[in-house]
C-alpha cells in the first residue's frame, strides 16, 4: 500500500472526493504517523479521538453528498489558535492547561469546510522566536538533517511545529501565524510552502495575540496549490475583528498555473545585505531566471528604508506585545503563583509563567512605551514603518507586480547554535521578512533548491495588498521550475 501521508493536500482532496479513499483511512494513516514522529516534538497535543470522530463525520457528509472544500483532510493547528474544548497554550507555561470555550474564526472556517484536526502544533512561546526553541514544550526537531550529519536542526520559528509537521508528512497542511516571518522562515527552513496573506485578510479573532498590528494567520503546506486551497478557507471578513478586511475571497486555486507572462518582478538591491552567502545569492539569481523563463520581466528596484525595518520591528512588536500580554496576570485563568500581596502575585506569576525571551520582549516593549522614551522609540519606529510602506507603494506604482527576495539569510541552523548570548543573532533571521509585516503586504516562501549541505533554501515573493493570487501564480512557476525538494530522510521512525 502506498503511504497515504505522502500525498499533497490537493491529491488527498481529489482522492477523497472521488471516494477512492475515505477520510477515516486517511486520518488513521496520519494518526499513526503523528504517533511515530514524536521524537520531532512537532505536536504539543495529539487529538486522535477527535480526529477520527471528525473523519467519521466527514465520511458521512461525503456519503450524503454534502462535502465541503476540505472535507476529511487532516490538518495540524498551531497552538496559538484557540480551539474549543482543546487545550490551547501558545506554548507558554503561563496559560497552564487553558481550555478555551471558543473556537478561533480561522479554525472554525476550516471545520466548516470539513477539515479534520490531528492536534495542536508546537511554536515559539507566544510566537516569539525564529527557531521554535523558546517553546515551553521544548524545541521542535527538524525532519531535515545536513547530508552526512545527524546533528539536530531547528525547523525555524515561530511556526516550527507547523513547518516540521508538514515536511515530515504528519499532517496534510497546517495553520501558522506570521508577525515578522513566522510562516515564511520556517517554510524556507523545511522545504515547505507558506504564505502570510495581506494584513486583514484572515481574522485574528481567537488567535493568541503577539503584536496586533503585525500578526496574520496563514497556512504552511507542501505545495503552492495546497496553500491556495487552505487560504481560501481561512480568509474572509470577520465582524469580530475590526482590522479584518471586508472583501470577497477569490478562488485562489484558479491562480495556480495561471500565466505570469509580462509580469514585472522587482529585485530590491537593498536586500543584498552584507555577508550574504554566495549560495543565497545564487539561489536568488536562479529564482529570477526561472521567472524570466516563464515570461516575466525582471527589474531592479529600490526599497531604500529596508535597513531600518528590523530595528523598527523590534520596537513596534515588543511594544504591542508588552500590552497584549498584560492579561496573563494570574487573576482569571492560566497559572497563578501566589504571593504576599497582589503585586507579588503578579510578579511571581509572570516571572515563572513567561520564558526568558518573552520576558525580554515585555521589558523592551515596556521601556519603549515609557514616558520620556515613547517619542524617541515608538513614534520614530512608526514613522519608519510609514516610510517602509511608502517604499513598496512607490515600487508598485511603477507597475511592479511582485518582488523577489531570498526568504532567509541562510539555511536552517542547529538547535542551540544561535542566540545564546546575543539575541540579535537570532533576530537577524527575520531581516528579509519583517518588511512585509511592517507594510502589511502578502508574502509567500517557496523552496528554490537545496544548499550544498543538502538543506532546503527558500525564495520569497512579496505582493501588492490583497493580491495573493499573483503570488500563487509566481510561486507555482518557481515550484515547477525548481521541482519539489526531495523529502527528508525519515530518521525518526
Amino acid at each position, binding site marked *: 500500500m502506498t503511504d497515504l501521508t505522502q500525498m499533497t493536500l490537493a491529491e488527498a482532496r481529489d482522492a477523497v472526493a472521488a471516494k477512492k479513499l475515505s477520510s477515516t483511512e486517511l486520518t488513521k494513516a496520519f494518526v499513526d504517523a503523528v504517533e511515530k514522529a514524536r521524537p520531532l516534538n512537532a505536536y504539543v497535543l495529539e487529538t486522535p479521538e477527535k480526529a477520527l470522530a471528525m473523519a467519521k463525520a466527514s465520511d458521512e457528509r461525503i456519503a450524503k453528498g454534502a462535502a465541503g472544500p476540505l472535507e476529511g483532510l487532516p490538518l495540524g493547528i498551531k497552538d496559538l*489558535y*484557540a480551539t474549543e474544548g482543546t487545550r*490551547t497554550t*501558545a506554548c507558554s507555561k503561563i*496559560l497552564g492547561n*487553558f481550555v*478555551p*470555550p*471558543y473556537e*478561533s474564526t480561522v479554525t472554525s472556517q476550516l471545520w466548516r469546510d470539513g477539515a479534520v484536526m490531528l492536534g495542536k502544533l508546537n511554536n515559539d512561546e507566544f510566537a516569539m522566536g525564529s527557531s521554535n526553541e523558546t517553546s515551553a514544550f521544548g524545541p521542535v526537531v527538524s525532519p531535515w538533517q545536513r547530508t552526512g550529519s545527524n546533528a539536530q536542526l531547528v525547523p525555524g520559528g515561530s511556526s516550527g511545529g507547523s513547518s516540521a509537521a508538514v515536511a515530515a508528512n504528519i499532517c496534510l497542511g497546517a495553520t501558522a501565524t506570521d508577525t515578522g516571518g513566522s510562516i515564511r522562515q520556517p517554510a524556507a527552513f523545511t522545504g515547505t510552502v507558506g504564505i502570510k496573506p495581506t494584513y486583514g485578510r484572515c481574522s*485574528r*479573532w*481567537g*488567535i*493568541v*495575540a503577539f*503584536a*496586533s*498590528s503585525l500578526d496574520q494567520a496563514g497556512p504552511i503546506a507542501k505545495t503552492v496549490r495546497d496553500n491556495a486551497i487552505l487560504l481560501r478557507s481561512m480568509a474572509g471578513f470577520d*465582524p*469580530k*475583528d*475590526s*482590522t479584518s478586511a471586508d472583501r470577497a475571497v477569490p478562488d485562489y486555486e484558479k491562480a495556480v498555473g495561471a500565466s505570469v507572462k509580462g509580469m514585472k518582478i522587482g529585485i530590491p538591491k537593498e536586500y543584498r545585505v552584507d555577508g550574504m552567502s554566495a549560495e543565497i545569492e545564487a539561489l536568488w539569481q536562479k529564482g529570477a531566471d526561472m521567472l524570466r523563463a516563464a515570461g516575466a520581466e525582471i527589474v531592479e528596484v529600490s526599497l531604500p528604508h529596508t535597513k531600518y525595518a528590523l530595528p523598527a520591528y523590534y520596537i513596534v512588536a515588543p*511594544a*504591542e506585545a*508588552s*500590552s497584549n*500580554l*498584560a*492579561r496573563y*496576570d494570574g*487573576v*482569571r*485563568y492560566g497559572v497563578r503563583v501566589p504571593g504576599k500581596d*497582589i503585586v507579588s502575585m*503578579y510578579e511571581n506569576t509572570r516571572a515563572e509563567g513567561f520564558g526568558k525571551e518573552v520576558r525580554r520582549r515585555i521589558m523592551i516593549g*515596556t521601556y519603549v*512605551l*515609557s*514616558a520620556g522614551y*515613547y517619542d524617541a522609540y*515608538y513614534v520614530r519606529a512608526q514613522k519608519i514603518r510609514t516610510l517602509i510602506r511608502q517604499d513598496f507603494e512607490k515600487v508598485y506604482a511603477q507597475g511592479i507586480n511582485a518582488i523577489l527576495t531570498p526568504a532567509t539569510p541562510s539555511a536552517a541552523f542547529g538547535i542551540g547554535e544561535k542566540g545564546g548570548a546575543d539575541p540579535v543573532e537570532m533576530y537577524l533571521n527575520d531581516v528579509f521578512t519583517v518588511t512585509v509585516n511592517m507594510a502589511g503586504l502578502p508574502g509567500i516562501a517557496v523552496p528554490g533548491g537545496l544548499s550544498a549541505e543538502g538543506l532546503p533554501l527558500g525564495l520569497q515573493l512579496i505582493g501588492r495588498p490583497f493580491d495573493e493570487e499573483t503570488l500563487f501564480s509566481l510561486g507555482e512557476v518557481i515550484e515547477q521550475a525548481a521541482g519539489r525538494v526531495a523529502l527528508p530522510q525519515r530518521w525518526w521512525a
Partner: protein
Amino acid sequence: MNATVDPKKLIKGATGDWEVVIGMEIHAQVTSQSKLFSGASTEFGGDPNDHVSLVDAAMPGMLPVINAECVAQAIRTGLGLKAQINLRSVFDRKNYFYPDLPQGYQISQYKDPIVGEGEVLVDLPDGQQITVGIERLHLEQDAGKSLHDQSPTMSFVDLNRSGVALMEIVSKPDLRSSDEARAYVTKLRTILRYLGTCDGNMEEGSLRADVNVSVRRPGEPLGTRCEIKNVNSIRFIGQAIEYEARRQIGILEDGGKIDQETRLFDPGKGETRSMRSKEEAHDYRYFPDPDLLPLEFTQAYVDELKKGLPELPDEKKARFIAAYGVTAYDAGVLVAERAGADYFEAVAKGRDGKAAANWVINELFGRLNKDGKDVTSSPVSAAQLGAIVDLIGEGTISGKLAKDLFEIVWTEGGDPKEIVETRGMKQVTDTGAIEAAVDAVIAANPDKVEQAKAKPTMIGWFVGQVMKQSGGKANPQAVNDILKAKLGIE
C-alpha cells in the same frame, strides 16, 4: 479664562483672601444596551459576573469591536455641550495592572478625543450665570469592581461593569467656588438626562467626578493642584472642595507648599486624604490600540444626529420665558428635569403661564418633594392640575379651596370639576348672600367694628370671620369690597 475676581467668592484666610480654582473630570456612563467593545449587557445589578463576555474577561485572542450606539451617544453629548465634534478620533491603550482591569489596559482616547472644546451655561443660586468651558469629551471603558469584604484572605472581582462605556467630560479650570462646582455638575447632569445619553444616577455610579482643586491669591498664576478622585454625590463634591481649599490655604499660610497628588474624599469624616503622590503616579504607556482602527464618521452623520436632538434646557428655558411669561428663576426651576418641564407645559398650554408655573412649582413640586415622589409618578396628572387652574381662573373656586381640592385629587384622585360640584366647593359670588354674612359678623362684633375704624388692618379679621361663615366658599375679593364699604374704611 481669567475673568475678574468676584470678591464674594473669595475665601478669607488668616493672611488675606484666597481664590479657589476648580476643574472637573466627570465620568458619565453612556446609556446603551451593551458595552463599549462587547455585546454584553450594561444592566445595573445582577449577580456578580452575570454580564461578562469573553472580551470583557480578556480571554486570549479576544478583540474589541466598537459599539456604534455608544459613539452616537458621545456625539449627541458633544452637540449638547455645543462642542466641536472630531470626525476622526483614536482609541489608545492606558496600561496598568489591577485585578479588576482584565486586559491590563483600559481602552480610552488620549491624544485624539471624539469631542473637543465646548461650553456649559450654569445658573447660580444667586441668579448669576457663568459659562464653564469644556476642554474635551472622550470615550473609554469602565473597569470592574474589586470586592474586599467577601473573604478574610482573598479579594473577589466582579466584571459586570468591566467594559461599560464611559464619557469622560473634562472642564476647563473655570470654576471658582464649591457652589459653582455643584451648580456645574447639576447642570451637566440635566443636559445629559435631556439628551438621554447618561441617566445621571450618582448612587449607582453612573456619574462620578474627579475634582481638581488649587488655591491662589487673587490675580496670581494658578497654584499647584490636587485631584480628588471618584466623588460620587453633588453634596460630597461641595464638601470635598470646601475641605480641600481650606487645607491648601492652611498649608500655604503656614509657609508650606502644596504637593501635586491624588487624594480621596472620605464622606464619613468630611476630609480628603492622600492616595498617591506625583512620584508614585503610574506611567500609563499610552499608545494607539492596534486592535482598533481610527474612529471615523462623516459630518452628514453628525448632522443627522443633531436633527434628532431634543430641545435642551437652555433653549427650553428661553422659550418658557417668552411663551408663558414666567420669570427666569421659575423657568430655571421648571426645566431642571425634562419630565417636570413637560408636565408644566401640559398645564400651561392654553392657560395663564404664571399661574401654571406657580401651581407646578409651589404646590406640585412641593408636594412631590414632601412625599419623596418623582414627577413621573405624580398622583395628580397635568390634566387634573390644569382643571384646578381653570376652576380658579373662572372664579369657580377660591385659591384656598383650590389647595384643598389639590389635596383631595392627590389622595383620592378624580375629576376636579366633579369634586367641586358634588362637594359644594363652588365659590359664592352672590353679593346678597355675602352681604348678609357681613352684616351678621358686624352685628355680632360691635367692639371690633370700632377698633377697625381706627386700625384698618383689622379688616383681615373680619374677612376671616366671613369666610369661616361661608365655609370658605365666599369670593374673598367680594367679601373684602363689601366689608370696606360697610365699615367705611378705604
